[in-house]
């Protein structure tokens, strides 16, 4: 009885696994004129961010829009014979900077680009401030040193 139950569980697990395997292995089948074209396609789809899924490129996403964009990139490369930069411009014109993992420096993105340098300057400023304070605390001016000596002498006598 126990063995039969176990067997059933194993069978159920296996069929579940094969179903997942089938779902995952659903790949696009595209024709390319040359290996160079295929390599360009493959590197381009790695480059674009899927608009629907926030942090996956269109090569790695199973979202319908990612599939559409892969098909679009294939068409642009193979049928329209676009250069890599033309493909980037094409997608950027339609989906905005969001699809580029390497966003350009412009009015909307400057803060993101500039912020690390601003923070570095602030950090250096804070460091400098503390360093100077420490050094200033250690040295006494001439008048204070005289007072200190007088105090110490009085203590000793």
């Amino acid at each position, binding site marked *: 009885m126990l063995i039969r139950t176990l067997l059933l569980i194993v069978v159920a697990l296996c069929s579940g696994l094969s179903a997942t395997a089938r779902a995952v292995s659903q790949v696009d089948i595209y024709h390319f004129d040359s290996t160079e074209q295929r390599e360009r396609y493959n590197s381009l789809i790695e480059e674009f961010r899927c*608009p*629907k899924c926030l942090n996956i490129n269109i090569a790695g996403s199973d979202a*319908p829009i990612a599939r*559409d964009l892969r098909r*679009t990139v294939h068409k642009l490369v193979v049928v329209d014979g676009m250069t890599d930069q033309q493909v980037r411009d094409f997608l950027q014109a*339609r989906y*905005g900077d969001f699809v580029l993992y390497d966003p350009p420096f412009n009015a909307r993105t400057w803060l993101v680009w500039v912020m690390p340098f601003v923070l570095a300057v602030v950090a250096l400023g*804070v460091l400098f401030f*503390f360093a100077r304070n420490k050094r200033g605390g250690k040295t006494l001016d001439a008048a204070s040193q005289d007072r200190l000596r007088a105090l110490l002498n009085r203590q000793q006598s």
Partner: protein
Amino acid sequence: MSRLSLFIPLGVFLLILLVGYLGFSLDKRNELPSALLGNSFPTFDAADLFAPQTRVTREDIVGRPALVNVWATWCPTCKAEHEELMRIASISDVYLVGLNYKDDRHLALQWLADYGNPYDRVIVDPDGSLGVELGVYGAPETFLLNGAGEVVYKRVGDVNRRIWDDEIAPRLAHMGMTVAHQASGGEVLGHAD
């Protein structure tokens, strides 16, 4: 001086709070700004849903303020949105264009027969290629065009009563459109929501 520097950690902490607050409250991750905003609606050539032989182009829909609504029968949010589109069609004279997105033609016709057709024109995009031209990445999405055919507003997600009242109706009114028919106002508004 040294007493003042004791407040630096507090200042840093408040700065982190501020950045966190701005980061989380301003984050509209589901609403990508449309690259089309402020630009001319692209040219296209699509089939009419009701008459597949008829081609519809950009010239057929521009020339007056229009709402272009991307919808599909496989999209649950579109179902929720449909009632509001019916209401909009009845109270305003804005030109409503439906873009049936990656859908089955028969299901789409059945949908409009079952739930009513708010659209003045329905065009089809069976494989999503027109969607790519428009920067569409899901459904529903809605574009508001001015009379010159420029995209002045885009909504990602459903057009609901709040979006109509706050975002779309004021813009249409600004273009000189009627956004609420006086005579039918009472009875039409009665059953909404």
